[in-house]
């Protein structure tokens, strides 16, 4: 069944997020650090009168750390009652696409593995489908802790 997906770039890779999970795409206005918080929390940012918890996707996927100062595009995802902003390198478009079964049987790396829901075929490209809630949950180490 065809559904809507938001195509973004994380860690130099184009990935898809289920559009139903995404509330908005915003440009962050300032970032307040949250010292001692979980490593994948880049800080806090305000969106209108709400406080967004900004998630560093690279850190969440165990792929290193983002230089938060260089990134401004974020995908707002409400999860368990809290609004989060996922830092992404770029936001492309919303596409209608279908799940491509079997594509994730190839080893995609531990970091991606824990966040991947499968893959979609969009405009002939095969894109990894990522669950934003799993990214918000943080790196495997943080989850185990």
């Amino acid at each position, binding site marked *: 069944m065809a559904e809507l997906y938001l195509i973004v770039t994380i860690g130099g890779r184009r990935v898809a997020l289920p559009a139903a999970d995404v509330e908005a795409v915003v440009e962050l206005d300032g970032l307040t650090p949250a010292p001692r918080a979980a490593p994948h929390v880049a800080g806090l940012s305000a969106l209108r009168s709400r406080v967004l918890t900004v*998630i560093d996707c690279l850190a969440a996927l165990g792929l290193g750390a983002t230089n938060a100062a260089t990134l401004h595009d974020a995908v707002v995802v409400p999860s368990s009652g809290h609004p989060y902003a996922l830092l992404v390198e770029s936001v492309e478009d919303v596409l209608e696409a279908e799940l491509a079964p079997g594509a994730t049987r190839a080893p995609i790396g531990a970091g991606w593995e824990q966040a991947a829901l499968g893959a979609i075929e969009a405009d002939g490209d095969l894109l990894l489908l990522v669950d934003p809630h799993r990214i918000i949950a*943080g790196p495997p180490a943080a989850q185990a802790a």
Partner: protein
Amino acid sequence: MDDLINEFLAETREMLQALSGAIVAWEADPANRERLDEIFRFVHTVKGNCGFFDLPRLRQLSHAAEDALAEVRAGKRAADPRLVSAVLAVIDRIGELAQAFETGEALPSEDDEQLIADLAAHPGDGPARVESGAGIDSHPGTTDAEAAARAPSEGAKKGLRSIRLSVDLLDRMMNGVSDAVLARNELARRLREAERDVAVEAAFERVSTCIAEIRDAITRTRMQRIDSLFAPLPRMVRDLCAELGKQVRLEIDGGDVELDREMIEMIRDPLSHIVRNAIDHGIEPPDRRGPKGPVGLLRVAARQAGNQIRIEVSDDGHGIDAEALARKALDAGIVTADRLERMSHQQKLMLMFAPGLTTAAEVTAISGRGVGMDVVRANIERIGGVIDVDSRPGEGVRLAIRVPLTLTIIPALTVSAGGQIFAIPRSSIEEILRAGGDSVRIEAVGEACVATIRGRRVPLVSLAELVGAERTADAQGEKIILLKPAGGDLYALAVDTVHDHEELVVKPAAPAVMAAGIYAGTTLADDGRPILLLDPSGIASEAGVRVDIVDSDRHAATGGAESIGREVSLLLFRGLDGGLRAIPVPVVERIEDVPVEAIRHSAGKLRLAVGERIVPLAGCAAAPESGQLRILRLTDGAAELAYGFGSVVDIRSLVLDMRPAAAPGEVAGVALIDGAQVELIDPYWLFAAHGDPVRDDERPVCALPEGDPWMDNMLRPLIESMGYRVVAAGAGVAADVLIASAETVDPPPAATGKVLRLRATPESPREDDDSIYRYDRAALLSALSRPVARERANG
């Protein structure tokens, strides 16, 4: 009582609304058993409630309808159209009466008897009534007079009208207003940045005022009298006593204090747990209470102090043995022997809140099953509250809960450290000091820092270091904030700058942020940037402050602090004349705005009508012309006093260096607070000068023989001046002191208290005589002034 009646009326109205469908359906099909049952339940409920409220008309009506319907239910009578009409007429009348009560209108017409007679009438008796047979409004008996009575009469009691709302809706409103406040703040910031435009600013001011008013109103809608929290207690205490074979007298005080609904729900479980504990483990069985008397006393009192509500639960049971508790904690591995040795009495008592520790010797069905005080404390702390315990063996336990008024808006102090702004809840701030000042000395002990503040050593945590930033080189410019976290001991937090006191709308932070352990939530600053609200107890544990090591009591004693006075908590305010004054917080019950109409110069002094009582008013020579007067409600435990003032400045806890006033008066002396001269109000003098004498029944009682002119005319004024209430002696009179004439052959039995025998001659007639010469004033006064302990029946 008014609340209960309102509740009942609202309930009746709701039931009527829900019932209207059933009434119509029953009318169409009188044989329908389901509908009949529904209507029967309604009149039955109304009957039960009105009996309780003493509403005779409603009771008569509902009783008659219930009887008739019961006959139908029992099959003794058929639900013929006449009966249906009669029942419907009665139900309509109940609705009218309820509405009349609620709005304070004149009661509808009085032909209840006719309606009741119709119910009882059997088919064929008398003329059939004409029933139009539809909705509530068309029923027999509507006269012109009644229709007139229905129109809201002038001067109808307002405020009795009420509607019920779901708490969800209130929450949504509150959230909406919180957002509006934040949006306003952001707009204010942008306006400051933009070019000045007077018209825009005026419009913005208006919007601002509106939002503030709405916020105030909505905050009030969320407030509920704490009565509703206390209401189930008498029943609970009664049931527990029956179950445990104990005798407990429950005293509840301060039920008119208002608190956020949500807060009340959050406190409900902890409070009932504490009360259960007190009865189960605190108060002894009647035969083991000894001289205290068989009936235990449990006091639950609420008081508002600034932005906090303090709820105190105290019992007069056997108390907590701190040493035994400490031993248990040691056995359970909760503390080490080493640590235990350095713990104060207070700290040992606080062990009762440690997980997995119960003070009960055995587990009972009521409490002591491990779901213990640790859960109580956790629940209280979750809502930003603090719980404290005090107990002496044999004298009972006093547990005090302090909680903020609302969950969502809390007063906080904004500070910065390491280049970032944080907020600290005001509730845990004891004092703010400058690091370079004379009163603070900072020393490095090993890797740690210790601040000595007026002879008191407390661990020092650097907020900048804690958040992983460089500590500013200029330690002298740092500010020291003394924090007393929930249930913990004092410690000091060093920050770079202290900014401002703000009322912040706090929202919970995401779990990944809360994982840091040092945050309590997030909020937005005026400039729209997020600010993290710090959690003082979280900081203490994350920073590894071993609060129990630095025993403040001991260090205060060894640090040469003998000259240091006791720290007092003071409410700073401006008097009506603008002067800066301070009064000890414990005597302040609450702060209120009262309309000047409630103030009268009556019976020699200014008095204020508060609810159903009259309290003397001090602090102002005359009532203001119009508007409102802000008052402090003061209490000395028995008497009450109102004190008019201008505005609250602050609440401060400090050691006072007071210069006494030249003569005793309203002002006890003057002290320097923050460089300003502050006059300290002397509550002792205030109550002595303005307070009304306590009510009769609280004074000791002295019984005088009747018909003795000397006693009546000469002795009585003296005794009364000693604070006694004088009653005539006689059978069945309970008195603390009984005065008898030594010449009387057989003095009345001394069952009631002390007997004081007076003789007319200066010389004692016999050696063993204990009578007093009746003009020996000194002996009389001393005999009367001896503490008169009321005789307790030993059980």
